[in-house]
């Protein structure tokens, strides 16, 4: 088996792990602001890992440059969108969850 394929598989497994954990976190966390945490950070890391695996599989070509552009855009856009959602919710008066509250 090729070394490059093995490295791609490792990166894809790490990325899928982070993406799945982020999805479970979005469902399981108790309130809106804590749900933002997996959606903003773990998700970005997982998707970047998967795309880096694809870049390593492809080698240096036009396709990998497009993949790097997608990675760059996801790194900029995903936390920005999460921040925008958080700001809109804060301005609308959503209260943070405190210990002892009911899960919302």
């Amino acid at each position, binding site marked *: 088996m090729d070394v490059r*394929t093995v490295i*791609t*598989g490792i990166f*894809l497994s790490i*990325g*899928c792990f982070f*993406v*799945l954990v*982020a*999805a*479970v976190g*979005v*469902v399981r966390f108790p309130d*809106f602001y804590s*749900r*933002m945490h997996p*959606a903003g950070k773990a*998700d*970005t890391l997982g*998707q970047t890992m*998967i*795309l880096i695996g*694809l870049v390593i*599989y492809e080698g240096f070509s*036009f*396709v990998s440059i*497009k*993949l790097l*552009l*997608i990675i760059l*855009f*996801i790194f900029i*856009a*995903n936390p*920005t*969108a*999460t921040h*925008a*959602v958080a700001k*809109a*919710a804060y*301005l*609308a008066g*959503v209260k943070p969850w405190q210990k002892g509250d009911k899960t*919302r």
Partner: protein
Amino acid sequence: MFSTAAVLVLIAVLIVLYRAVKGPRIYDRVLAVNVMGTKTVVLLALIGFIYNRPHFLDIALVYALINFIATIAILKYKETGSLQ
């Protein structure tokens, strides 16, 4: 290998879809739909590698842009009531 990764990403999209349907406020739904959109970008790239068609990467790039703009537009409409 790529098919397995694509199936796992699809399972993650299904898990997040639960939050998008149930979410008590509109902000939970917007957040979940944003997460689903960025996962769609990864899924498009993986499908392009599975079927050996690199043109899917262009679609993935455009979808990433549209997804970001859509999130910002929905939030602005909710906040101010118009898109002007």
